[in-house]
């Protein structure tokens, strides 16, 4: 049986970075979330979170909308159709890798 490490190289690095994976996982569980929620969920600073979101938006995975709640500006984030598909495939790939690793360990041991 081939070792599972080869599959790691096939993972999308844009998605697999921990902060971005957390952001995409959260957005996949809702229609949209605001910037503050994602900031508290990830523990990232505004600058870091903005930078990750800009990369995800550039890749077409995340939609960023700015609105106002009264006079307070609010940034709403949601997944695009492509983003929802990509994160779903990524989880599936991670699940397969995990299974493969466990089988490989069992056969190796």
């Amino acid at each position, binding site marked *: 049986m081939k070792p599972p490490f080869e599959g790691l190289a096939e993972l999308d690095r844009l998605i697999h970075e921990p902060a971005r994976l957390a952001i995409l996982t959260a957005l996949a569980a809702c229609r949209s*979330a605001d910037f503050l929620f994602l900031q508290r969920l990830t523990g990232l600073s505004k600058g870091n979170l903005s930078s990750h979101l800009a990369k995800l938006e550039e890749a077409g995975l995340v939609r960023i909308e700015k609105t106002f709640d009264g006079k307070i500006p609010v940034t709403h984030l949601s997944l695009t159709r492509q983003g929802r598909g990509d994160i779903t495939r990524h989880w599936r790939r991670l699940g397969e890798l995990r299974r493969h690793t466990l089988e490989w360990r069992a056969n190796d041991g």
Partner: protein
Amino acid sequence: MPGLTPRDLERIQAVTANYFFWQGLRWVPMGAALLAVGLYWSGWWRVPAPLGDAVQLGVLGLALAISAALGGYYRRRFGAVHGIAGMHARRERIKWVFVYPAMAVSLVADMVFAPPVLLSGFVWAGGILAYRRSTGGGRAHYLVAAPLLAAFGFLPLLGLMQPGKAAVNLFVAAVGIVFIIGGLLDHFELGRILRPVPATSDEAPV
């Protein structure tokens, strides 16, 4: 942020998808109202008879208003999440078709038939476990609250309270206490997951 484990990802998914239910402070006024109503029915809280119904309605109305206002607090302090329509359709169906009717029927059965063991204790304990499981797990305090409510069911059998309406009245007050303590602990757990925003001077959001 450091590496994520599958468990971290599951927790992120669970809290985001069930954010409303993790806003524990919203359940505290409802618990206080149930406690007040239970104590009123038990005769522990004395209100002049003509005012009784108005006071009960007032307490419940006030609890709903405070609970709604606390939604604004969560939006400002922890942020907002908009759910996916129909995402929890199965849970809602099971809740309204099986769980809530079973809870109501058990209360009525306990009042009407006055069994030596309070059925509501077991049914509501099951309801609490189902609630925990269907709203994202975590919150281990409900694993303590459920057996306590079930144990409450044995109090009439042990002669520690009268079966029937008297037991149901006190049970409602006990459920109120579970709501209050459970809500506070939910809130603390949410606060641990949704950490305070790092204080930096960097730029505004994208």
